[in-house]
């Protein structure tokens, strides 16, 4: 359970940034 909490918390911290990278790439590609 503890590992699950730590894993989930880590994703919550890191994944928005990762997703953002891809979202921004998509938008930039659309703009181009």
């Amino acid at each position: 359970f503890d590992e699950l909490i730590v894993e989930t918390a880590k994703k919550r911290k890191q994944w928005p940034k990762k997703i953002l990278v891809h979202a921004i790439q998509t938008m930039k590609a659309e703009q181009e």
Partner: protein
Amino acid sequence: PQGRAQVFSTVVDAFLKKLLAAGSYQKFASCYRCFYKLQPQLTRSIYDQFLSQLQSSITEEIQEVKSEGNLEGLFNSLDKIVEEAKAREEPAWRPSGIPEQDVRSALVPYLLKHRSYLRQVLREQQEENRKVAESVLAGRDRIVELQQLIRAHKEAWQ
């Protein structure tokens, strides 16, 4: 107010003090009474060593835990974050447990930027199209004019 690192050390020190106080010499001697009767001095010195060994082990361990988890750094940065939020009363946002929902806000600033970029591009395009449309209309008028001129010439000839 004390920072978290300070509170942490204070609380652990207090725990250690109370623990060592709990294990009093009286209690120790009464548990090891058979040995105490034979060697009271030795019992005392063993007890003293017990205390100092326990204290140094636990103190070292706390240092180990602090450096292992970088606790001091974390406590100090948490103090700063809490300080910055001082003005805020109501409970702050917390993860909803629905990732799709939580990631949205992270995207919003970029979507807003994208939207304003598209709005600007559209404005520029519309402006440019307006100009090109004007030249097209002017071109059409010119063609009509030329056709009329030619027709006039032709009729004159005819």
